[in-house]
């Protein structure tokens, strides 16, 4: 007979995730309701935007119907602000390199000055939202110079602009995410290293004992089997860094309500990580590596002529595959979750009751997807690190026949 207290513990453990799920559902569904509400009369909109400037201040444009594709793309891509909830956002600095030197200002100047233009998309007239400040315009998160008449020219038929692009060095959401990840890494591992130095020879305690299994896992299960015990230590710093960077960056992208970081889901970030793997592999390749690559032993000569070009292509393709695998996995996860959210919003537009009903089921699916994404976050970091270790091991292999 099970102890009744164990049942109490189980339901208590369940209550916190259920509470979070309920809160998330409440906020999401009331968002659907609010979407419906913004279609209301002029009076309602006047009341909305009396004192502070809001995101939707102009009342002379008609509200577009909900466009799921655009919403998903907007949340996947980079932005110049971290949009937390409703009208509250963390405005990141915009840093532009113009002909007149560096210009730095807060992106709140952009986001509080919204303009509209009309353009055609698939035969339906839609509103193009863009933001203007000083001599610059922010349109789809790219910054353009305003032309001589102070306008952003949006072509009516394509929705694209022909203004000149400014050299944009801003701290965007992804850059802020990367800096946050680096700060977390430095704080975490700095304290672990300090504890090891202070308590050398003693049993690990505190944060040390939490990180030690992961560090030993990378060393004993990933680095040493792939590279070999006597050479693994050379590559351990890089492998540890890349593993924890990718893991923490993936996890940051899963936290709701902080603007939706998509750090490792952008090709630029993973390109850099893959490029570093490529550089390390190429520069630590010894004679056996290049020898086996360009003149594979134990292969009949006619096949060598086919195999060698493939191997040479492989030098470049393997890091590219690393890059795309990581980006695609993380982006796909985010798109699935956003698709469930937009399902709620699509149904919410037709009627509030439908929104609530779909919201209940969609939120359950979303919670399930979040758990899978937690697994994927760790798994993709592990696979990236493992493959990098395998490539390093290949490059530093000794003759063994």
């Amino acid at each position, binding site marked *: 007979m099970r102890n009744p207290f164990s049942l109490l513990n189980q339901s208590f453990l369940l209550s916190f995730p259920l509470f979070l799920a309920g809160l998330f559902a409440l906020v999401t569904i009331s968002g659907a309701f609010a979407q419906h509400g913004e279609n209301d009369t002029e009076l309602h909109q006047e009341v909305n935007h009396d004192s502070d400037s809001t995101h939707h201040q102009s009342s002379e444009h008609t509200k577009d119907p909900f466009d799921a594709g655009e919403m998903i793309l907007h949340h996947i891509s980079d932005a110049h602000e971290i949009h937390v909830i409703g009208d509250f956002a963390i405005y990141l600095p915009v840093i532009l390199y113009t002909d007149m030197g560096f210009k730095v200002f807060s992106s709140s100047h952009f986001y509080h000055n919204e303009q509209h233009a009309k353009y055609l998309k698939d035969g339906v007239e839609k509103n193009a939202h863009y933001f203007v400040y000083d001599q610059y315009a922010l349109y789809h998160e790219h910054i353009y110079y305003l032309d001589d008449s102070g306008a952003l020219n949006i072509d009516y038929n394509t929705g694209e602009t022909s203004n000149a692009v400014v050299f944009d060095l801003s701290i965007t959401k992804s850059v802020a995410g990367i800096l946050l990840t680096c700060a977390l890494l430095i704080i975490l591992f700095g304290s672990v290293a300090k504890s090891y130095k202070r308590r050398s020879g003693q049993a690990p305690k505190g944060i040390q004992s939490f990180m030690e299994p992961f560090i030993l896992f990378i060393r004993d299960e990933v680095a040493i089997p792939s590279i070999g015990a006597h050479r693994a230590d050379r590559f351990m710093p890089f492998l540890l860094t890349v593993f924890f960077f990718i893991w923490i960056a993936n996890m940051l992208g899963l936290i709701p309500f902080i603007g939706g970081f998509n750090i490792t889901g952008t090709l630029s970030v993973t390109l850099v990580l893959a490029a570093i793997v490529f550089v390390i592999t190429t520069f630590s390749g010894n004679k056996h590596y290049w020898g086996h690559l360009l003149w594979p032993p134990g292969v009949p000569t006619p096949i060598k002529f086919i195999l060698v070009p493939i191997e040479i292509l492989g030098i470049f393709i393997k890091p590219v595959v690393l890059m*795309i695998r990581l980006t*695609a996995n993380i982006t796909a996860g985010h798109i699935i979750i956003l698709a469930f959210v937009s399902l709620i919003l699509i149904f919410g537009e037709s009627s509030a009751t439908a929104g609530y009903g779909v919201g209940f089921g969609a939120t359950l699916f979303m919670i399930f997807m979040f758990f899978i994404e937690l697994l994927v976050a760790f798994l993709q970091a592990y*696979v990236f690190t493992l493959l990098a270790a395998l490539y390093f091991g290949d490059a530093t292999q000794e003759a063994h026949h």
Partner: protein
Amino acid sequence: MELLAVLLQAAADAGLAGIGAGLAAVGAGMGIGRIGASALESMARQPEATGDIRANMIVAAALVEGVALFAVIVCLLVVL
């Protein structure tokens, strides 16, 4: 109904890209299904090697999934 019209419009526009992404999902499902099946079978034959088999299964599944997501990215690029 508007919702049906929206869904049909999306299907007509995406077209072949949607079919491509679906085929990629089929390929991934078949591949990872086979990996899982053979991993479970070998774990049943030799339970003490479960840890090794599980780790290798996960690596192989991630590699196969990477290839499938190639196709998904290409389909996404077609649509955008």
